[in-house]
């Protein structure tokens, strides 16, 4: 999966039983891809000693504060590994 800039994506809602870098506040919410930041080892695998770790594209994804919190006019941008994301259906 390679996601084009501008694609709307949803951060996965699940709650993994291990270390992850998808903050709770973004889970289940919809944001827009700004750009790809290259391919990087997946922290979930590195933290658990999975060798070799999966290597995935990381995307800068911009969320609207209103979508995250129900209030606010700012945006919040996170960098998220591709397995943290699904294309908005």
């Amino acid at each position: 999966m390679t996601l084009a800039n501008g694609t709307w994506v949803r951060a996965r809602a699940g709650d993994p039983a291990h270390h992850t870098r998808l903050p709770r506040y973004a889970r289940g919410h919809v944001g827009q891809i700004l750009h790809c930041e290259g391919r990087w080892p997946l922290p979930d695998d590195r933290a658990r000693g999975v060798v070799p770790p999966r290597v995935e594209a990381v995307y800068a994804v911009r969320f609207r504060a209103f979508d995250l919190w129900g209030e606010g006019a700012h945006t919040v941008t996170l960098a998220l590994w591709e397995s943290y994301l699904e294309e908005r259906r």
Partner: protein
Amino acid sequence: MSRVHDVGGQSGFGPVPLDDDGLPFHADWQARVYALSGALRSRGHFNTDEFRDAIESLPVQQYLSQSYYERWLAAMENLLTAKGLI
């Protein structure tokens, strides 16, 4: 599972403490902890995500009550012990 470190958007932590004096450390032991974590990582004994995992896995009360480098110390003790390195 949701862990205590994941605080984005959580309320109740009060105002931002602005009493920063620009110094990186406020006791020699903090510098030693920083040095230990950096050297152990660069020697490959654990990686950044294993270290983060160990910090996040501290008991909630401990995570919230301890200072930044106290958490690092406890996490290193736990991680190195779990790996059988010390």
